[in-house]
């Protein structure tokens, strides 16, 4: 691994950590279910960039691309399932507030 690769890695890594913090903050602080989903999407994008970066730095771009394509397919199905669950919760309670999901206590 050449020296400039390590510099590239630290630069990209710095911004990937920034993206992680944005996504995690959004997920933790929000009271709206759709925004929680947006937070998770940001986190997954940061991870996608990390895997491509790892593939570039080690020279195995083909493997990294194959992994990322699989991740994107799975992520679409998860996001679609989450969105449909949110729509159904809205049909029951008429709000997107997470505080409406406090029925299961104990």
């Amino acid at each position: 691994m050449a020296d400039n690769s390590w510099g590239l890695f630290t630069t990209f890594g710095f911004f990937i950590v920034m993206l992680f913090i944005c996504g995690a903050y959004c997920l933790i602080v929000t009271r709206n279910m759709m925004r929680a989903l947006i937070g998770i999407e940001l986190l997954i994008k940061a991870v996608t960039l990390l895997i491509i970066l790892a593939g570039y730095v080690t020279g195995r771009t083909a493997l990294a691309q194959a992994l990322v394509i699989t991740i994107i397919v799975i992520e679409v199905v998860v996001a679609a399932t989450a969105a449909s669950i949110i729509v159904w919760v809205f049909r029951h309670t008429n709000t997107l507030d997470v505080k409406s999901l406090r029925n299961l206590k104990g």
Partner: protein
Amino acid sequence: MPSLLILIPLFGVIILNLAFAGSRKAKRWAFVFAFALFALQIAVAIFHHPALSGNALERIDAFFKISFLVDHLSFLMFLCIGIVSLASLVVAKYTMADENDSFKFINLLILASLGMSAIVMVKDIFSLYVFMEVTAISSFLLIAFPRSLESLEGSFKYLILSAVATVLMLTSIGLMLMVAGTTSFSGLSIALEASRSSELVALGVGLFICGLFIKGGLVPFHGWLPDAYMAAPAPASVLLAGVVTKAAGIYTMIRIVTSVLGSYRSLNSVLLLIGTISIFVGAIVAIDQKNFKRMLAYSSISQMGYIIVGLGAGNALGLIGAAFHLFNHAIFKSLLFVNSAAVEKETGTCDMTKMGGISQKMPVTGTTSVIALLSTCGIPPLAGFWSKLMIVMALWQADYYAYATLAILGSIITLTYFLSMQRRVFFGKLASGMENLREAGGGMVTVSIILAAITVGAGIFFPFVFTNIISPIKELLVR
């Protein structure tokens, strides 16, 4: 040969949905097909005869160009998955009156069991992630199946926490990819051996273990578990409590720790600490619950703690004890959930304060529940006693005297609570409103009896079980 366990269900689901679309025949065939499939899986797991790896079957595997991992732990997990899926199938048939509903449910059940069977036979960390997502997506849909507000809530909480676990695991795969250049277990373990003292690698390993803690429902990452177990429809609870948490979280932890990570000393202490905290939090919070299923969920967290503590002991006996306790927990916890489904169907409630003296009207349900609860506490000669004994002895052998005492203490807390609870719910005075109870339908009673017989049998015939089924697992530790 193992890939057949994946291909047959997949083609079956495709054919059921396309070829017979909408006809009445499809609905009946679905149940028969699923039943035959799970029975076949159990048979394969018990009788893995060398003749089964004939030439024709090998060629199907060769199409995939990767070797599958079928050692004794995998066969034990195949057995668990087959038995619990079969129990869940029978409960689904008895609690879902509408044929359309049960058809869709059975399809999802086959896909979930397919995902779990694939988890236990891959040798590659990324394929592990892919099939964990398959299992997770099927579980979200199974939990949200009745579309009531409670079940949607449980499914949503599980979804968010499972997505967080996914992000943690993928980050760790990205970091390990940079060190190893490949995602197979063997390549990773060589690379991790070489870079043992690196901080980045330690961060990657730590993130992956945190993701697995979330998936396995260990404290403090257990927030989704009681809600999901309680709000799910009865057959989905059986499947979740019996196998999904185990295959996705705990089995993966055992496989990663033995195959990839070698023996990081600090990892063992983390496992012991989290395991012990789970044992106590699960046991103590369970005392306070009024809902039967929620109490069972917290008791599951406690038993998962035992398995992790057994793994953290670091020696062969701990590994064997953890694997056997995994099998036992699958059997007796799914038995308890099957019985709670029967009670819920007959009485219409899960509230323990309203139940009393159920054994007088539902004798089989009552007796099998008592057997399962005693096995949870670790009473001889039932199977739970042997697995807990092995874990405690393993801790003692590895000089972790404090943890061994704490494990015994947790068991005593569980024992006192369960004895008083079962006396009140099953044996006490018949509560008001319970006079018209009948015993549950034939299928559920048969399943209860078979599961209880397995628990009792594994306990009584323990020497046979030990030498033939469990002891070979210690080969995993020889690296």
